Protein backbone atom coordinates (compact mmCIF):
# COMPACT_ATOMS: atom_id res chain seq x y z
CA UNK A 1 0.00 0.00 0.00
CA UNK A 2 1.08 3.52 -0.72
CA UNK A 3 2.95 5.09 2.12
CA UNK A 4 1.02 8.23 2.94
CA UNK A 5 3.56 9.75 5.23
CA UNK A 6 2.69 13.27 4.16
CA UNK A 7 -0.51 13.43 6.13
CA UNK A 8 1.40 12.71 9.31
CA UNK A 9 4.41 14.92 8.79
CA UNK A 10 5.35 16.03 12.28
CA UNK A 11 4.68 19.65 13.07
CA UNK A 12 7.78 21.70 12.56
CA UNK A 13 8.86 19.64 9.58
CA UNK A 14 7.77 20.08 6.03
CA UNK A 15 6.84 23.65 6.78
CA UNK A 16 6.26 26.32 4.19
CA UNK A 17 9.41 28.35 3.55
CA UNK A 18 9.58 31.79 5.10
CA UNK A 19 9.43 33.71 1.84
CA UNK A 20 6.30 31.93 0.62
CA UNK A 21 4.72 32.35 4.02
CA UNK A 22 5.45 36.07 3.98
CA UNK A 23 3.96 36.38 0.51
CA UNK A 24 0.92 34.41 1.60
CA UNK A 25 0.43 36.66 4.61
CA UNK A 26 0.53 39.61 2.21
CA UNK A 27 -2.26 37.99 0.19
CA UNK A 28 -0.28 36.73 -2.79
CA UNK A 29 -2.56 34.22 -4.50
CA UNK A 30 0.19 31.93 -5.73
CA UNK A 31 1.63 31.75 -2.24
CA UNK A 32 -1.79 31.07 -0.76
CA UNK A 33 -2.27 28.23 -3.21
CA UNK A 34 1.16 26.89 -2.31
CA UNK A 35 0.22 27.01 1.35
CA UNK A 36 -2.99 25.09 0.77
CA UNK A 37 -1.17 22.58 -1.42
CA UNK A 38 1.39 22.07 1.32
CA UNK A 39 -1.02 21.38 4.14
CA UNK A 40 -4.16 20.12 2.42
CA UNK A 41 -3.44 16.41 2.86
CA UNK A 42 -2.78 16.79 6.56
CA UNK A 43 -5.89 18.87 7.09
CA UNK A 44 -8.02 16.62 4.93
CA UNK A 45 -6.78 13.56 6.79
CA UNK A 46 -7.44 15.14 10.16
CA UNK A 47 -10.94 16.27 9.20
CA UNK A 48 -11.74 12.86 7.70
CA UNK A 49 -10.69 11.08 10.87
CA UNK A 50 -12.38 13.52 13.20
CA UNK A 51 -15.62 13.43 11.21
CA UNK A 52 -15.60 9.65 10.90
CA UNK A 53 -19.05 8.55 9.79
CA UNK A 54 -19.81 11.89 8.14
CA UNK A 55 -17.95 11.70 4.83
CA UNK A 56 -20.37 14.10 3.15
CA UNK A 57 -19.22 16.90 5.46
CA UNK A 58 -15.49 16.41 5.11
CA UNK A 59 -14.75 18.43 2.00
CA UNK A 60 -16.89 21.36 3.02
CA UNK A 61 -15.38 21.54 6.48
CA UNK A 62 -11.84 21.14 5.15
CA UNK A 63 -12.52 24.08 2.85
CA UNK A 64 -13.92 26.10 5.73
CA UNK A 65 -10.82 25.35 7.76
CA UNK A 66 -8.58 26.70 5.04
CA UNK A 67 -10.78 29.74 4.55
CA UNK A 68 -10.35 30.47 8.26
CA UNK A 69 -6.64 29.87 7.97
CA UNK A 70 -6.19 32.10 4.93
CA UNK A 71 -8.37 34.86 6.32
CA UNK A 72 -6.59 34.68 9.68
CA UNK A 73 -3.11 34.26 8.23
CA UNK A 74 -2.05 37.91 8.70
CA UNK A 75 -2.60 37.37 12.43
CA UNK A 76 -0.33 34.32 12.54
CA UNK A 77 3.03 35.20 14.04
CA UNK A 78 5.79 33.17 12.35
CA UNK A 79 8.11 34.01 15.26
CA UNK A 80 5.60 32.79 17.83
CA UNK A 81 5.82 29.46 19.63
CA UNK A 82 3.52 27.56 17.25
CA UNK A 83 4.64 26.20 13.91
CA UNK A 84 2.38 26.97 10.99
CA UNK A 85 1.37 23.32 10.68
CA UNK A 86 0.48 23.13 14.37
CA UNK A 87 -1.56 26.29 14.06
CA UNK A 88 -3.41 25.04 10.98
CA UNK A 89 -4.11 21.64 12.50
CA UNK A 90 -5.29 23.35 15.68
CA UNK A 91 -7.72 25.44 13.64
CA UNK A 92 -8.88 22.25 11.92
CA UNK A 93 -9.30 20.33 15.17
CA UNK A 94 -11.34 23.07 16.78
CA UNK A 95 -13.52 23.43 13.69
CA UNK A 96 -14.16 19.68 13.76
CA UNK A 97 -15.04 19.74 17.45
CA UNK A 98 -17.42 22.65 16.86
CA UNK A 99 -19.22 20.65 14.20
CA UNK A 100 -19.24 17.44 16.21
CA UNK A 101 -20.55 19.12 19.32
CA UNK A 102 -23.15 21.15 17.45
CA UNK A 103 -24.94 18.26 15.78
CA UNK A 104 -24.65 14.51 16.00
CA UNK A 105 -25.42 12.37 12.96
CA UNK A 106 -28.39 10.04 13.00
CA UNK A 107 -26.46 7.39 11.15
CA UNK A 108 -22.80 6.80 10.63
CA UNK A 109 -21.32 5.66 7.38
CA UNK A 110 -18.20 3.58 7.29
CA UNK A 111 -16.99 3.28 3.70
CA UNK A 112 -16.33 -0.24 2.54
CA UNK A 113 -14.13 0.58 -0.40
CA UNK A 114 -10.50 1.47 -0.15
CA UNK A 115 -7.92 1.77 -2.92
CA UNK A 116 -6.86 -1.54 -4.43
CA UNK A 117 -3.20 -2.48 -4.19
CA UNK A 118 -0.79 -4.98 -5.61
CA UNK A 119 -0.71 -7.25 -2.55
CA UNK A 120 -4.24 -8.63 -2.36
CA UNK A 121 -3.81 -10.97 0.62
CA UNK A 122 -1.73 -8.72 2.79
CA UNK A 123 -3.79 -5.75 1.81
CA UNK A 124 -7.06 -7.45 2.59
CA UNK A 125 -5.93 -7.96 6.17
CA UNK A 126 -4.56 -4.43 6.26
CA UNK A 127 -7.81 -3.05 4.94
CA UNK A 128 -9.85 -5.03 7.41
CA UNK A 129 -7.74 -3.75 10.24
CA UNK A 130 -8.20 -0.22 8.92
CA UNK A 131 -11.96 -0.69 8.93
CA UNK A 132 -11.90 -2.03 12.46
CA UNK A 133 -9.85 0.95 13.59
CA UNK A 134 -12.23 3.30 11.83
CA UNK A 135 -15.28 1.66 13.40
CA UNK A 136 -13.68 1.71 16.84
CA UNK A 137 -12.65 5.36 16.45
CA UNK A 138 -16.22 6.22 15.48
CA UNK A 139 -17.33 4.93 18.87
CA UNK A 140 -15.00 7.24 20.78
CA UNK A 141 -16.19 10.57 22.11
CA UNK A 142 -15.02 13.50 20.01
CA UNK A 143 -12.74 14.71 22.81
CA UNK A 144 -10.92 11.40 23.07
CA UNK A 145 -10.81 11.05 19.30
CA UNK A 146 -9.23 14.47 18.95
CA UNK A 147 -6.45 13.52 21.35
CA UNK A 148 -5.65 10.22 19.69
CA UNK A 149 -5.88 11.61 16.15
CA UNK A 150 -3.46 14.42 16.94
CA UNK A 151 -1.11 12.06 18.76
CA UNK A 152 -1.19 9.07 16.45
CA UNK A 153 -1.58 10.62 13.03
CA UNK A 154 -0.04 14.06 13.39
CA UNK A 155 2.63 13.43 16.02
CA UNK A 156 1.58 16.27 18.28
CA UNK A 157 3.24 16.01 21.66
CA UNK A 158 1.26 16.37 24.87
CA UNK A 159 1.92 20.08 25.21
CA UNK A 160 0.81 20.73 21.66
CA UNK A 161 -2.36 18.70 22.11
CA UNK A 162 -3.09 20.54 25.33
CA UNK A 163 -2.62 23.89 23.59
CA UNK A 164 -4.72 22.85 20.60
CA UNK A 165 -7.63 21.65 22.70
CA UNK A 166 -7.31 24.20 25.47
CA UNK A 167 -6.93 21.58 28.18
CA UNK A 168 -4.31 20.58 30.74
CA UNK A 169 -1.53 18.16 29.88
CA UNK A 170 -2.83 15.84 32.59
CA UNK A 171 -6.20 15.79 30.86
CA UNK A 172 -4.50 14.94 27.59
CA UNK A 173 -2.80 11.96 29.22
CA UNK A 174 -5.97 10.72 30.86
CA UNK A 175 -7.97 11.05 27.65
CA UNK A 176 -5.28 9.24 25.71
CA UNK A 177 -5.25 6.49 28.32
CA UNK A 178 -9.03 6.13 28.16
CA UNK A 179 -8.95 6.15 24.38
CA UNK A 180 -6.37 3.36 24.37
CA UNK A 181 -8.54 1.42 26.77
CA UNK A 182 -11.58 1.89 24.56
CA UNK A 183 -9.57 0.79 21.53
CA UNK A 184 -7.94 -2.09 23.40
CA UNK A 185 -9.64 -4.80 21.41
CA UNK A 186 -8.50 -3.30 18.11
CA UNK A 187 -5.05 -2.28 19.28
CA UNK A 188 -4.13 -5.47 21.12
CA UNK A 189 -6.35 -8.22 19.70
CA UNK A 190 -5.73 -10.51 16.78
CA UNK A 191 -4.66 -8.50 13.75
Amino acid at each position, binding site marked *: *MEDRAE*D*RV*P*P*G*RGELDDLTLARARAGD*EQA*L*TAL*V*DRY*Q*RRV*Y*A*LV*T*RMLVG*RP*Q*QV*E*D*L*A*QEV*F*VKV*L*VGLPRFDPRG*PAKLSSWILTVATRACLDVLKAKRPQTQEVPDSL*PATSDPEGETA*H*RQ*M*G*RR*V*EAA*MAELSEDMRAV*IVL*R*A*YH*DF*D*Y*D*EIAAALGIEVGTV*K*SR*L*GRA*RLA*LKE*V*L*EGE*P
Partner: protein
Amino acid sequence: MSNTEKPDEAGDLTPEERRRLETWKAPDPPPGFSAQVVTRARVHQAPAPSRTTAPLSRAERERRRRRRSAAAAVLGGVAVSGGGGFVAWQAAVAQAAGTSHAMTIYLAALAFGGVLLIASLVGGHGHADHDAGHADGHDGDHDHGADADSAAHAALVLPFLSLRFWIFGLTFFGLTGAILHGFGLAGPLATAIIASVMGLGMGYGAAQVFQTLARQTVGQIAADGGHVGREGKLLLPTARGQRGKMRVVVNGVATDLLTETDEEKPLPAGTAVLIVGMRGTVAVIERSPTSNHPTEQGDEP
Protein backbone atom coordinates in the same frame (compact mmCIF):
# COMPACT_ATOMS: atom_id res chain seq x y z
CA MET B 1 8.51 21.57 21.64
CA SER B 2 10.65 19.20 19.75
CA ASN B 3 9.48 16.06 18.14
CA THR B 4 12.50 14.27 19.52
CA GLU B 5 11.16 14.94 22.99
CA LYS B 6 7.94 13.00 22.68
CA PRO B 7 6.63 11.81 25.99
CA ASP B 8 7.22 8.17 26.61
CA GLU B 9 5.02 7.57 29.62
CA ALA B 10 3.25 4.28 30.06
CA GLY B 11 0.08 5.96 28.81
CA ASP B 12 1.51 6.81 25.43
CA LEU B 13 0.91 4.80 22.28
CA THR B 14 3.24 1.91 21.65
CA PRO B 15 4.81 1.37 18.22
CA GLU B 16 2.51 -1.60 17.64
CA GLU B 17 -0.55 0.49 18.49
CA ARG B 18 0.62 3.18 16.12
CA ARG B 19 1.14 0.63 13.39
CA ARG B 20 -2.38 -0.64 13.80
CA LEU B 21 -3.90 2.83 13.95
CA GLU B 22 -2.09 3.74 10.77
CA THR B 23 -3.91 1.04 8.87
CA TRP B 24 -6.82 3.47 8.82
CA LYS B 25 -6.04 5.54 5.74
CA ALA B 26 -7.56 8.90 4.96
CA PRO B 27 -8.47 9.87 1.39
CA ASP B 28 -6.69 12.56 -0.56
CA PRO B 29 -8.35 15.93 -1.10
CA PRO B 30 -10.24 16.03 -4.41
CA PRO B 31 -8.60 17.60 -7.47
CA GLY B 32 -8.87 21.36 -7.54
CA PHE B 33 -9.26 21.55 -3.76
CA SER B 34 -6.68 24.27 -3.26
CA ALA B 35 -8.05 26.39 -6.13
CA GLN B 36 -11.54 26.17 -4.65
CA VAL B 37 -10.27 27.11 -1.22
CA VAL B 38 -8.31 30.13 -2.43
CA THR B 39 -11.27 31.34 -4.50
CA ARG B 40 -13.60 30.93 -1.55
CA ALA B 41 -11.23 32.76 0.77
CA ARG B 42 -10.84 35.59 -1.73
CA VAL B 43 -14.61 35.97 -2.06
CA HIS B 44 -14.98 35.89 1.72
CA GLN B 45 -12.60 38.80 2.06
CA ALA B 46 -14.16 40.84 -0.75
CA PRO B 47 -17.12 43.10 0.04
CA ALA B 48 -20.48 41.68 -1.03
CA PRO B 49 -21.81 43.33 -4.19
CA SER B 50 -25.12 44.22 -2.54
CA ARG B 51 -23.38 46.17 0.18
CA THR B 52 -23.70 49.85 -0.58
CA THR B 53 -22.31 51.29 2.63
CA ALA B 54 -19.27 50.42 4.67
CA PRO B 55 -19.81 48.52 7.93
CA LEU B 56 -20.22 50.81 10.88
CA SER B 57 -17.35 51.11 13.29
CA ARG B 58 -17.90 50.26 16.94
CA ALA B 59 -17.68 53.95 17.87
CA GLU B 60 -20.25 54.90 15.25
CA ARG B 61 -22.61 52.16 16.42
CA GLU B 62 -22.24 53.42 19.96
CA ARG B 63 -23.01 57.01 18.86
CA ARG B 64 -26.10 55.85 17.02
CA ARG B 65 -27.21 53.78 19.97
CA ARG B 66 -26.97 56.87 22.19
CA ARG B 67 -28.92 58.96 19.69
CA ARG B 68 -31.62 56.29 19.59
CA SER B 69 -31.74 56.28 23.38
CA ALA B 70 -32.21 60.04 23.48
CA ALA B 71 -34.91 59.93 20.79
CA ALA B 72 -36.71 57.12 22.57
CA ALA B 73 -36.59 58.97 25.87
CA VAL B 74 -38.08 62.10 24.28
CA LEU B 75 -40.77 60.13 22.49
CA GLY B 76 -41.53 58.13 25.60
CA GLY B 77 -41.91 61.33 27.62
CA VAL B 78 -44.19 62.83 24.99
CA ALA B 79 -46.26 59.64 24.85
CA VAL B 80 -46.66 59.36 28.62
CA SER B 81 -47.48 63.04 29.21
CA GLY B 82 -49.71 63.15 26.15
CA GLY B 83 -51.55 60.04 27.23
CA GLY B 84 -52.07 61.35 30.75
CA GLY B 85 -53.25 64.71 29.46
CA PHE B 86 -55.57 63.00 27.04
CA VAL B 87 -57.18 60.93 29.79
CA ALA B 88 -57.67 64.00 31.97
CA TRP B 89 -59.09 65.93 29.04
CA GLN B 90 -61.47 63.09 28.23
CA ALA B 91 -62.70 63.03 31.80
CA ALA B 92 -63.22 66.79 31.80
CA VAL B 93 -65.06 66.72 28.49
CA ALA B 94 -67.26 63.89 29.64
CA GLN B 95 -68.22 65.69 32.84
CA ALA B 96 -68.69 69.15 31.34
CA ALA B 97 -70.42 68.54 28.04
CA GLY B 98 -71.92 65.08 28.15
CA THR B 99 -70.52 62.10 26.37
CA SER B 100 -71.03 62.86 22.71
CA HIS B 101 -67.59 64.48 22.23
CA ALA B 102 -65.85 61.51 23.78
CA MET B 103 -67.74 59.14 21.50
CA THR B 104 -66.71 61.24 18.51
CA ILE B 105 -63.07 60.92 19.52
CA TYR B 106 -63.33 57.16 20.01
CA LEU B 107 -65.00 56.69 16.65
CA ALA B 108 -62.53 58.98 14.91
CA ALA B 109 -59.61 57.05 16.42
CA LEU B 110 -61.21 53.75 15.45
CA ALA B 111 -61.89 54.93 11.91
CA PHE B 112 -58.43 56.41 11.41
CA GLY B 113 -56.55 53.48 12.96
CA GLY B 114 -58.83 50.89 11.39
CA VAL B 115 -58.38 52.22 7.87
CA LEU B 116 -54.61 52.31 8.26
CA LEU B 117 -54.62 48.85 9.81
CA ILE B 118 -56.65 47.33 6.99
CA ALA B 119 -54.51 49.11 4.41
CA SER B 120 -51.29 47.81 5.98
CA LEU B 121 -52.64 44.27 6.30
CA VAL B 122 -54.05 44.11 2.77
CA GLY B 123 -51.54 45.98 0.71
CA GLY B 124 -48.53 46.89 2.74
CA HIS B 125 -46.87 43.84 4.28
CA GLY B 126 -43.71 44.93 5.90
CA HIS B 127 -44.05 48.59 5.02
CA ALA B 128 -45.65 49.69 8.23
CA ASP B 129 -42.47 48.96 10.14
CA HIS B 130 -39.98 50.54 7.83
CA ASP B 131 -39.53 53.31 10.31
CA ALA B 132 -38.58 50.80 12.98
CA GLY B 133 -36.44 48.72 10.68
CA HIS B 134 -34.30 51.61 9.62
CA ALA B 135 -34.32 53.72 12.71
CA ASP B 136 -31.16 52.05 13.94
CA GLY B 137 -29.23 52.91 10.85
CA HIS B 138 -29.00 49.35 9.58
CA ASP B 139 -29.67 48.90 5.94
CA GLY B 140 -30.47 45.23 6.13
CA ASP B 141 -27.25 44.13 4.51
CA HIS B 142 -24.64 44.54 7.12
CA ASP B 143 -23.87 44.53 10.80
CA HIS B 144 -26.75 42.30 11.74
CA GLY B 145 -25.68 40.17 14.61
CA ALA B 146 -22.52 42.16 15.06
CA ASP B 147 -24.11 44.37 17.64
CA ALA B 148 -26.26 42.25 19.89
CA ASP B 149 -26.37 44.91 22.60
CA SER B 150 -27.67 47.42 20.14
CA ALA B 151 -30.35 44.99 18.93
CA ALA B 152 -31.53 44.30 22.47
CA HIS B 153 -31.61 47.98 23.24
CA ALA B 154 -33.55 48.69 20.05
CA ALA B 155 -36.11 46.05 21.02
CA LEU B 156 -37.03 48.14 24.05
CA VAL B 157 -37.39 51.53 22.41
CA LEU B 158 -38.27 50.90 18.80
CA PRO B 159 -41.95 50.01 19.35
CA PHE B 160 -42.63 53.69 20.09
CA LEU B 161 -41.00 54.65 16.80
CA SER B 162 -43.07 52.17 14.88
CA LEU B 163 -46.03 53.18 12.78
CA ARG B 164 -47.62 49.87 13.80
CA PHE B 165 -47.62 51.01 17.40
CA TRP B 166 -49.74 54.02 16.52
CA ILE B 167 -52.02 52.13 14.11
CA PHE B 168 -52.83 49.34 16.55
CA GLY B 169 -52.90 51.76 19.46
CA LEU B 170 -55.43 54.10 17.87
CA THR B 171 -57.57 51.25 16.58
CA PHE B 172 -57.89 49.48 19.90
CA PHE B 173 -58.17 52.72 21.84
CA GLY B 174 -61.09 53.73 19.64
CA LEU B 175 -62.68 50.29 19.58
CA THR B 176 -62.52 49.83 23.34
CA GLY B 177 -63.75 53.33 24.04
CA ALA B 178 -66.59 53.07 21.56
CA ILE B 179 -67.79 49.73 22.95
CA LEU B 180 -67.56 50.71 26.61
CA HIS B 181 -69.07 54.12 26.00
CA GLY B 182 -71.67 53.04 23.44
CA PHE B 183 -73.04 50.23 25.59
CA GLY B 184 -72.69 52.17 28.81
CA LEU B 185 -70.46 49.51 30.35
CA ALA B 186 -68.29 52.00 32.24
CA GLY B 187 -68.27 55.60 33.32
CA PRO B 188 -66.56 58.25 31.17
CA LEU B 189 -63.34 58.36 33.19
CA ALA B 190 -63.08 54.59 33.50
CA THR B 191 -63.77 54.23 29.78
CA ALA B 192 -61.03 56.70 28.91
CA ILE B 193 -58.52 54.95 31.16
CA ILE B 194 -59.38 51.45 29.97
CA ALA B 195 -59.34 52.55 26.32
CA SER B 196 -55.94 54.26 26.76
CA VAL B 197 -54.43 51.23 28.49
CA MET B 198 -55.83 48.92 25.83
CA GLY B 199 -54.49 51.14 23.05
CA LEU B 200 -51.03 51.41 24.57
CA GLY B 201 -50.88 47.71 25.33
CA MET B 202 -52.05 46.53 21.94
CA GLY B 203 -49.87 49.04 20.13
CA TYR B 204 -46.77 48.07 22.08
CA GLY B 205 -47.52 44.38 21.78
CA ALA B 206 -48.13 44.53 18.04
CA ALA B 207 -44.99 46.55 17.44
CA GLN B 208 -42.95 44.10 19.53
CA VAL B 209 -44.34 41.09 17.68
CA PHE B 210 -43.67 42.52 14.24
CA GLN B 211 -40.24 43.70 15.31
CA THR B 212 -39.36 40.23 16.57
CA LEU B 213 -40.55 38.67 13.35
CA ALA B 214 -38.51 41.17 11.35
CA ARG B 215 -35.38 40.42 13.40
CA GLN B 216 -35.81 36.70 12.83
CA THR B 217 -36.10 37.28 9.11
CA VAL B 218 -33.02 39.48 9.10
CA GLY B 219 -31.15 36.86 11.09
CA GLN B 220 -32.02 34.28 8.47
CA ILE B 221 -30.79 36.55 5.73
CA ALA B 222 -27.60 37.30 7.62
CA ALA B 223 -27.04 33.59 8.13
CA ASP B 224 -27.56 33.05 4.43
CA GLY B 225 -24.63 35.38 3.89
CA GLY B 226 -22.53 32.39 4.89
CA HIS B 227 -23.22 30.96 1.44
CA VAL B 228 -20.86 33.49 -0.10
CA GLY B 229 -17.88 31.68 -1.53
CA ARG B 230 -19.67 28.34 -1.86
CA GLU B 231 -20.04 26.52 -5.10
CA GLY B 232 -23.04 24.68 -6.41
CA LYS B 233 -24.84 23.66 -9.53
CA LEU B 234 -27.38 25.72 -11.40
CA LEU B 235 -30.82 24.09 -11.54
CA LEU B 236 -32.53 26.76 -13.66
CA PRO B 237 -30.74 28.99 -16.18
CA THR B 238 -29.83 32.45 -15.02
CA ALA B 239 -29.02 35.52 -17.06
CA ARG B 240 -28.71 39.20 -16.42
CA GLY B 241 -32.23 40.33 -15.49
CA GLN B 242 -33.50 36.75 -15.33
CA ARG B 243 -33.55 34.90 -12.04
CA GLY B 244 -32.77 31.23 -11.83
CA LYS B 245 -32.18 28.67 -9.13
CA MET B 246 -29.17 26.77 -7.83
CA ARG B 247 -28.48 24.05 -5.33
CA VAL B 248 -25.66 24.27 -2.82
CA VAL B 249 -24.73 21.59 -0.33
CA VAL B 250 -23.71 22.75 3.13
CA ASN B 251 -22.61 20.15 5.64
CA GLY B 252 -24.40 17.50 3.64
CA VAL B 253 -27.67 19.41 3.48
CA ALA B 254 -28.85 20.55 0.05
CA THR B 255 -30.28 24.08 -0.08
CA ASP B 256 -31.91 25.66 -3.11
CA LEU B 257 -31.39 29.37 -3.64
CA LEU B 258 -32.78 31.88 -6.10
CA THR B 259 -30.00 33.28 -8.25
CA GLU B 260 -29.08 36.45 -10.12
CA THR B 261 -26.01 37.17 -12.16
CA ASP B 262 -24.27 40.21 -13.56
CA GLU B 263 -22.34 38.15 -16.09
CA GLU B 264 -22.61 39.05 -19.76
CA LYS B 265 -23.35 35.54 -20.94
CA PRO B 266 -26.37 33.57 -19.72
CA LEU B 267 -25.56 30.66 -17.43
CA PRO B 268 -27.32 27.47 -18.52
CA ALA B 269 -28.72 24.88 -16.12
CA GLY B 270 -26.07 22.46 -14.90
CA THR B 271 -23.31 25.08 -14.81
CA ALA B 272 -21.03 24.96 -11.79
CA VAL B 273 -21.37 28.39 -10.23
CA LEU B 274 -19.79 30.36 -7.39
CA ILE B 275 -21.81 32.52 -5.01
CA VAL B 276 -20.09 35.90 -4.89
CA GLY B 277 -22.68 37.73 -2.82
CA MET B 278 -26.21 37.79 -1.48
CA ARG B 279 -28.94 40.28 -2.33
CA GLY B 280 -31.37 39.58 0.45
CA THR B 281 -32.06 35.88 0.05
CA VAL B 282 -31.03 35.83 -3.62
CA ALA B 283 -27.56 34.52 -4.41
CA VAL B 284 -25.44 36.54 -6.81
CA ILE B 285 -23.49 34.04 -8.87
CA GLU B 286 -20.69 33.78 -11.37
CA ARG B 287 -19.47 30.88 -13.41
CA SER B 288 -17.19 28.90 -11.12
CA PRO B 289 -13.51 29.44 -11.87
CA THR B 290 -13.00 25.77 -10.99
CA SER B 291 -15.87 24.55 -13.11
CA ASN B 292 -13.60 21.98 -14.75
CA HIS B 293 -13.43 20.24 -11.39
CA PRO B 294 -16.16 18.30 -9.66
CA THR B 295 -17.92 20.43 -7.07
CA GLU B 296 -19.13 19.41 -3.64
CA GLN B 297 -22.54 19.27 -5.24
CA GLY B 298 -21.69 16.38 -7.46
CA ASP B 299 -25.01 14.78 -8.24
CA GLU B 300 -27.93 15.93 -10.24
CA PRO B 301 -30.88 17.02 -8.10
